[in-house]
Each structure stands twice: as C-alpha cells, then as structure tokens.
C-alpha cells in the first residue's frame, strides 16, 4: 500500500495522460491522413486547443478504436473527445451501453447539431451511423462504387461501355470469344465481392434490423450475383488476383473495365505501382445496375468522426465537427467528401485535371447519391468471412454457388458471437 502511495505522489509530478480536460482543450484520436485537415482547423479556430493523438485509424481490422475505448471504460477514464475511424460500422458498438458503462458515441441529432447542418449531407451518407433514427457519427468521406472503363481499349475493340450488369456479363462473353486474355475485374480482394458485387447488386446478404442479423444468399438478387461471378470466373473475364498483387499489375494493360469505388482513381489508375494509366485513357461512368432493378450501388469505405458522450467540452467538439466535415478546402481529407457542398467543390477540382474521360463529376455524383440503404452495418465485416471461406475456396477450384451457403453460415456465426440474434 505504501508503494502505491509513493508512486501516486511521484506520478503526480509526471502526469501527461491524454484525457479529457475541462479547460477548453479537446483530445482527438485520428490517423496521419487527417492531420492536415486538423491543422487547418487549428489555424481557423485558434480558440480551441487541440491535443491530437495520431494512431492507425482502426484500419486493416486492427480495432484500435474499440480496443482503446474498452480499456478506457474499464478504467473509468481516459476517453478522448473526438475519434476518427476509417471503418463504417463502429456505431454498432459505440451506440450501446457495454459492461455497465454508458455508450461512448454521443447522439448528434437530438439537439447537439442542427438538423439544417445534418441535411447538408449527401442523402444516405449518414446511413451507417444512424441507428433507430439517432445519428451517432459524422461521415467524413464517401467511396461509392461506380463503373470505370478503359475508353481507349473499348474504342479500339469497337464495343460500347456497358450500363447494366447484364451488359457487363455480355461484354465479358464477347471478350472471352474475340479477345481472350482481356478481363473486366477482380474478386481477389475481400472487399470486392461483398461491396462491389453484392451490395451494388442489391443482394440482401448482410442486413441488420435492431439486434437481428439476416443473410440470404438464396434471394433472387443474390442468385443473380452468384451466377454473374461464376460465369465470368469461368470464362476468364474475372480474375482471382488481388488488384494490388504482382499478377494483376503485370496484366493491367489487359483490363478493359472494372466496377469499383471512387478511390480507385488514385489507388489504381493514377498509381505507377498499379494500373498506371495514361491521361484520357480511362473514363468514369455511373454505376452498373440490374436492367429491371433499382438504380442503386455499393460503397467501399469512408471514415467517420465520433464525439464522446463523456466530453467536458461539447462546444469545442461541435465547432470541430462542423468544420472538419464541411470545410470546403479540407473536407473529405483527400477523398470524396460526404458533405454535399464540399463534394461539389472537390469534384470540380478533380475534373479540372482532365485525367479521366467521360463525365467524371456526373458519374461520381450519381454514384454517391444512390448507395443502397438496405445494407447492414453490424459490429463485424463481411470481408472476414469472405476471406476465410470464399477466397481459399475459389482458389481451390470451387464456385460461388458451392461456397455461398458456407459464407452465409460463417457470417451468421460471426454475428452470433458479437451478440446478434440470427434467424
């Protein structure tokens, strides 16, 4: 006991913990990519003192946000005021009371922020963080799925750019017959299948309602997606290579088109380590849809800002949040902003470079506003089940038709262990 007292006395001299302070300072946990935007905030609002703790933004499934808050809850102290996470499904756990401690995320639309402000978002951007009508976070950026195509190649082959999934499959057939070796996409990364094909294909394989999780891989839309993928895998127009892998990069000049998120622009096409496209070679088009289905698409990413329910400084937090998502110079922190006014400005700036043919701004705006709201955001990701079941299964020669039931079962199991009921 004496030791404890001594160390308490000593530590009083050494305290430097990143905790809540009641003197106008807010503590923010964010990753390195957000730092320029946060510095811009500090310049614009010198009255708010910011203590930025840089972490990995919970990327790559590291679960930093949830881990650290779990520890802070147990200790009864140490919560930050604002947190940024690159994942979209943190509201699933942050909105709930855990182990007797109040929910971490502060509700933002019950008087904290004006509804007028929240209405400035692109419709659907706040779906992942809205639970039972309460908004628990502010979306930072969007990553809607649209359709990218190699205009040069399509012109060379004399084909039209497809507008529906059926056209896409038909194009694959034509390529397989007349130009073997040319392909139309990849499902080698675990984010492609679920988000680019199933979500865009409006397949109800990942849905949440309250505490219940459902996944139905036998739904008609799901079956259509399964058939599409199997068909194109079979005729070689879909590859199992990761878009970041050596094999893909080696044959990237044979890529004719690919449905994918907005950030493919920088990560794939303008990346010398990726497709390494030339200006004007590639074009952006509105997302593919089923010919007789709703005009919806999927989404692959987009981070969220959360405010702490334990904060001692709500006014500063409010000022920060409003700036960081809507400031026209820095919103979106490099990606497509989720706030409409900022998004328009960002798209104009991007389109000015003229790198992409086609109506770049129109394609992305359409995609951003049509993300299907029927996709769920439980406290786990479909990617882990996909990577565990489908990726090795396909590599071993099975088909999506063989594997889908297993994938569904694995997702249902994962749902159960994190506390959802499965029917």
């Amino acid at each position, binding site marked *: 006991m004496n030791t404890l007292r001594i160390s308490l006395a000593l530590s009083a001299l050494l305290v430097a913990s990143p905790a809540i302070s009641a003197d106008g300072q807010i503590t923010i946990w964010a990753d390195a990519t957000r730092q320029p935007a946060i510095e811009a905030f500090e310049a614009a609002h010198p009255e708010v003192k910011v203590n930025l703790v840089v972490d990995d933004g919970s990327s790559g499934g590291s679960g930093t946000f949830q881990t650290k808050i779990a520890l802070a809850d147990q200790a009864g102290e140490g919560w930050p005021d604002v947190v940024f996470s690159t994942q979209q499904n943190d509201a699933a756990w942050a909105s709930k009371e855990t182990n007797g401690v109040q929910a971490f995320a502060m509700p933002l639309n019950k008087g904290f922020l004006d509804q007028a402000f929240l209405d400035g978002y692109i419709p659907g951007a706040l779906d992942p963080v809205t639970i039972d009508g309460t908004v628990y976070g502010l979306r930072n950026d969007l990553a809607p799925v649209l359709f990218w195509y190699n205009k040069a190649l399509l012109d060379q082959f004399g084909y039209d750019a497809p507008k529906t999934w059926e056209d896409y499959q038909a194009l694959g057939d034509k390529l397989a017959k007349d130009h073997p070796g040319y392909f139309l996409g990849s499902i080698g990364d675990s984010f492609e299948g679920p988000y680019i094909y199933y979500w865009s294909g409006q397949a109800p394989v990942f849905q949440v309602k309250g505490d219940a999780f459902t996944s139905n891989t036998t739904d008609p839309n799901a079956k259509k997606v399964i058939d599409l993928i199997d068909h194109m895998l079979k005729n070689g127009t879909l590859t199992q290579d990761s878009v970041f892998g050596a094999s893909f990069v080696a044959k990237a000049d044979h890529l004719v088109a690919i449905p994918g998120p907005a950030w493919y622009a920088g990560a794939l096409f303008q990346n010398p380590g990726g497709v390494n496209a030339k200006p004007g070679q590639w074009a952006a088009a509105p997302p593919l849809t089923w010919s007789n289905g709703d005009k919806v698409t999927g989404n692959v990413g987009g981070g969220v800002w959360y405010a702490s329910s334990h904060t001692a400084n709500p006014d500063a937090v409010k000022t920060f949040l409003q700036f960081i998502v809507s400031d026209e110079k820095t919103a979106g922190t490099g990606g497509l902003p989720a706030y409409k006014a900022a998004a328009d400005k960002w798209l104009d700036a991007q389109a000015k470079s003229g790198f992409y043919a086609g109506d770049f701004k129109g394609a992305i705006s359409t995609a951003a506003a049509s993300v299907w709201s029927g996709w769920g955001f439980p406290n786990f990701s479909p990617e882990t089940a996909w990577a565990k079941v489908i990726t090795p299964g396909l590599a071993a020669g099975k088909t999506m038709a063989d594997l889908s039931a297993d994938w569904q079962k694995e997702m249902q199991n994962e749902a159960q262990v*994190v506390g959802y009921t499965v029917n």
Partner: protein
Amino acid sequence: MHSDVSTPHTTVVHPQGGGLVRTSVRGASVERAQGRIGLIFVSLYTLFLVAFGIMPSLYAIFLAFTKRGAFVGFDNFVKVFKDYRFLPAVEHVGLYLLVWLVSLVVLVVLLAVIVHAVGVRWLSTSMRFIYYIPGALAGASSVMVWLFVLDPTVSPVSFLLHAFGLGSFVETVQADHLPITLAVIAFWTGAGGWILVMYGALNNISRDVIEAARVDGAGPIRTAWFIQIPLLRKWISYMVILSFAGGTQLFVEPRVLSQASRGVVSQDYSLNQLAFLYAFKQSDFNGSAAISLVLLVVSLALSVYFVFRGGLFERV
C-alpha cells in the same frame, strides 16, 4: 580483514582427484547472513513480480470465474467451449505445437552443438549472428516480409514454394498447411535466441570433461549425445517449457499472416487470438480470461513434468 561473520569449526579436506569435499560445520550466522542477502537481493524483483505478475494473474483468475463482479462458477468456460471457433482453434494450436516443438528442440540443439564445435572463430561468430538476426523481425515489423516471401509470384524462395506445388499466396497460407507455415515462421524468428542460450550453456561445460571424452575415444557425435546434451538438461527443459507455453499462446505469427493476407488467415486462428477477440471485439473480458486460464493450466501441467524431469529446481 575480518568480516562480521564468524566461521568457527570449519574443516576442509582436499582429497586427491579433484573436487572439494566440505566437512564443515556452518556457523548459524553464516546461514543468517546468506538468508539476509538472499532476501535483499530478491526484494526489488519481488516487488515487480507482485505488481506485474502476481496481482494481474490473480485478477485474471478472478475475471475468469465472475461476470460483472458476481461469481458465476464455470459459466464463462462453458460459453467459451461452446463457441464455434474454440475446437478449430484447439486443433490448430495442437498441430502447430507438434511441428514447432519437435523441430525447435531437435534443430536448436543440433545447430548449437555444431556451431560450438566449429573451430574457425569468425565462422562461428558469423553463424550465430546470421541465425539470430531474424529474431529482430519478430512481430509487427515482419508483415511485409511474409507478404512477399510467401507469395510464389514474387518470393525470393519461389523455387521452394513451386516445388511444394504452391502457385499463389492464397494457396501458401491455406488452412491445411498453416501449422507448418506458422512453425517455419516461428522457428525462423525464435531459433536464433535459443541457439545463443544453448551455445552459452555449452561454453560452460568444462573443457576437461570434453578432453577426457576425447581421450577415451569418443567422436563428436558420441561426445554430444553422451556428454554435452545430458549436461544441458536444465537448459533444454527450460527451453521446452517456455516454447511449449509460447506455442500454446500462439498469437503473433497468425496475426501477422492475417494482416499480410488481409483476412485469408482468419483472425481467430489460435486460442490466444480468440482470447484477444473476446476481450476487445466482444467486450467480454471474462470469457477472455477463461480462455487464458485454460492455456495456463495446460502449460502448467507440462511444465510440472519437465521441471521434475529436467531437474529445473535442483541445484548442482
């Protein structure tokens, strides 16, 4: 100079043939002085032991048998055993342990003996260095290395991977091969350290003993098998105990592979990873403690055996 310790009635006899035979009557104050210095020397360590070893372990045990502070008996254990990921994880760890432990013990002792027997100084030193360096790459820093080394399309050892019929990264990290892949990675990072320890232990064996064996006509293999290895008994036991415990607590290697493969190697491959998920993904610290306790009990059981078999608590 007289110390403050009196040593009456001591007689020492030196018979021929070496070795000191003590026929002394120890003074009580010698014992007390020894006891005092012993306690003083362990005091600081004991402080740390209590703060970072005993109290946290007791808390973990407390967590394993309670839920929100209330005693619930074995409920947490039952819940963990019924988890659909538990048995697969046990199987994974079991297979891994088999491959890992056997190869580690055999190869470490073999390599240590050979390195020790090498006559050329610079060769011995550089071999020890080369064997050890991978140990610096344990953990998070090695993700990138494995991402490339295990991918037959870009790997520096692609000929080896192709020889095993592996054509892609996904195939290499396939669940069937994983125990072997993980054991190889763990051996790569961990063997060097133990080789160093064994080398140091071999250095402590009196050269007279080795000389005597040579004079008797024993070749290197017989010397190793009959002289050196038995004298390494304690060290080998220590290595087995810790490696067994380390093996059951398999965590870093599958986590690194999980990151490198972006999920193809699942996040719940090993029991320790499962404990981690319970604590930080499911906010269930009690279930997590239950899994850890199971691992501890298993390691303990084996350790008890080796402590007595290897004479770990005995002194020369």
